[in-house]
């Protein structure tokens, strides 16, 4: 299996007639993803990408297609509204790709999420992919292969880099989740790690963090006490100067907090195998899996050995 995205996921695309929405809908369709409809207010009744019916509202799209997931490509000024509309329409899984959503808008969206049945990933993220099943996102599908390694990251292209390192070593992925680089993401490392922990088809996870905030530390606490599978980690921004926003709105060391050093220390305390170099993420996972598989044969329960040395 996988997390979040499986064979039963029926997807609509909000902003399907825009250039980004249309291009990536095509890519998703080519990957055999179950895209059942699109939403662009005012363009209801037309067809997008030749095969996808367009609706005026999410509610209408859900009513006629039974969609339970949505991916959002609308521009920043309208992105929060699109997310709120999806929440109001009972969409279970919402992926917001849009970059540049104001923090104040995300505070409102987060409030709406509490007590709702929706889960939000993003904004400012590459989305999610369950190799062999489908993708809700903008990642290049060809670098992925089916397998049992989960991946979660705040970054886009750095995630692709890590995925390629895994695939090159024959390590396929269960689901890859890009949670996005904003200060207020819909879902955080912790939320997704809980899902990976419960997924019987995920046997290890790569976790790629970056400077800013404390989400990596919170996930590390959980991993230390509850997580049953080996985790390989990397933190980007070890050389970033404080007080400067490194591209992502959330990647900033403010008030001495959110440094790579603190995050790496928290991850190491949790028994996570931290790769010092971004080029060694795949190799580290290969070593960890080799070790776990060996111990598995001797009846080990699969928890990671915290005395692991390469």
């Amino acid at each position, binding site marked *: 299996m996988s997390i979040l995205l499986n064979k039963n996921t029926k997807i609509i695309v909000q902003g399907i007639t825009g250039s980004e929405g249309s291009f990536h809908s095509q*890519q998703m369709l080519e990957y055999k993803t179950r895209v059942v409809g699109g939403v662009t207010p005012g363009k209801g009744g037309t067809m997008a990408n030749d095969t996808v019916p367009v609706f005026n509202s999410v509610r209408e799209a859900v009513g006629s297609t039974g969609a339970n997931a949505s991916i959002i490509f609308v521009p*920043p*000024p309208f992105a929060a509204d699109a997310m709120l509309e999806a929440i109001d329409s009972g969409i279970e899984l919402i992926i917001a790709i849009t970059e*540049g*959503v*104001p*923090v*104040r*808008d*995300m*505070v*409102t969206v*987060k*409030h709406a999420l509490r007590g709702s049945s929706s889960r939000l990933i993003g904004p400012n993220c590459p989305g999610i992919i369950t190799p062999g099943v489908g993708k809700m996102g*903008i*990642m*290049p599908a*060809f*670098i992925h292969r089916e397998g049992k390694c989960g991946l979660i*990251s*705040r*970054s*886009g*292209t*750095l*995630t*692709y*880099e890590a995925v*390629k390192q895994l695939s090159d070593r024959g390590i396929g992925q269960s689901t890859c989740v890009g949670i996005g*680089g904003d*200060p*207020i993401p819909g879902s955080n490392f912790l939320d997704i790690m809980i899902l990976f922990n419960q997924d019987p088809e995920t046997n290890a996870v790569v976790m790629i963090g*970056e*400077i800013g*905030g*404390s*989400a990596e530390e*919170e996930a590390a606490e959980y991993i230390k006490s509850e997580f049953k599978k080996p985790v390989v980690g*990397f933190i*980007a*921004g*070890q*050389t*970033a*100067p404080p*007080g*400067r*926003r*490194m*591209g*992502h*709105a*959330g*990647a900033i060391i403010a*008030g*001495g907090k959110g440094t790579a050093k603190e995050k790496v220390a928290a991850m190491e305390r949790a028994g996570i195998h931290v790769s*010092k*170099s*971004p*080029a060694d993420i795949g190799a580290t996972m290969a070593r960890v899996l080799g070790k776990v598989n060996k111990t598995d044969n001797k009846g080990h329960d699969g928890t990671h050995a915290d005395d692991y040395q390469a």
Partner: protein
Amino acid sequence: MKIHEYQAKQLLAGYDVPVPKGKPAQSVDEAVRAGLDLGGFPVVVKAQIHAGGRGKGGGVKLAKNETELKELASQIFGMQLVTHQTGPAGQTVQRLLVEQGMKIDQEFYASILLDRAQSKDVFMVSTEGGMDIEEVAAKTPEKIVKVTIDPASGFQPHHGRQLAFALGLSGKSFKSATACFEKLYRAYREADCSLLEINPLIRSGDEIIALDAKVNFDDNALYRHPDYDALRDLAEEDPSEIEASKSNLNFIKLDGNIGCMVNGAGLAMATMDIIKLHGGEPANFLDVGGGANAQSVAAAFKIILADKNVKAVMINIFGGIVRCDRVAAGVIEAAKSEHVTVPVIVRLEGNNADVAAQMLRDSGLNLTVAGDLTDAATKACAAVKG
């Protein structure tokens, strides 16, 4: 986006937050006139730069009469103000704020910012006003009182009371404080601030007044405040970063000698990290964005090579959906048009990476093809050493 103290105070005054009477000035003469217009001495002359710690650096002085005002204004105007936030080179003072001198009975600290972990706002106050708040937080964290505000229900009177009690206020000054806090929060929310900091917030008799003000705006929200354009002071920004923003490039100048050109912020940070890991020093952070075409690569070259410290450039592009041969064509075109002479190490990954590598090798330019990330970093570090 950062703005000056005088601009922050004008913004706050628009929300009826009490601030001292004052005027900005862009010359010594203007400063003297501004001081006389205030209608009485003493007045305070304050250097306007975006960095904090101005008082300690000698950028804030009290003038008791016109002669002193002129003297101090000429002293501060044009000075190279060095604070713990400017770096050793300091920042040239090109604007002054002349304000009425206030009677200070007590100094407090107040700030509002986002609590990322809770997705709520946090309002902080402290009785230790006028101090470096990070030092207070480190040494006496109990002296900082935090009140969390759920933006959905907004700032309530009980928040204001909690904050005012924390400062030990009573009577009329208590009322003045609760009113002030409510207005500060409104300004923070409506103006899309990412930080609002008043240090010090003072009690002058019964009145609570913002004696200083620091405001940062959420860059993502600038589109709904077109009036903020006028508040931008380009003299406070790095010229190469201004140039980069014109080309929609995300650029931050650093001190090393290996220029970096990467697509994606996370990968750009990771590229800096791996250079450092191999003994090199990155000259910059640069995210060329998803497209990475000839125009954006050319603009990136221009900005990177404007830094004379740069001895080599490392290009790290993960092609993804964009085909690598197109990126390679863009790199070759840009390297020619920008007459790039320093060694350029190119690592392209993704669709058609082989074709791209061959194109780069056949280009006849000083382009070195790297296989993977480690190979690229090793070659870039070797290039600056040899």
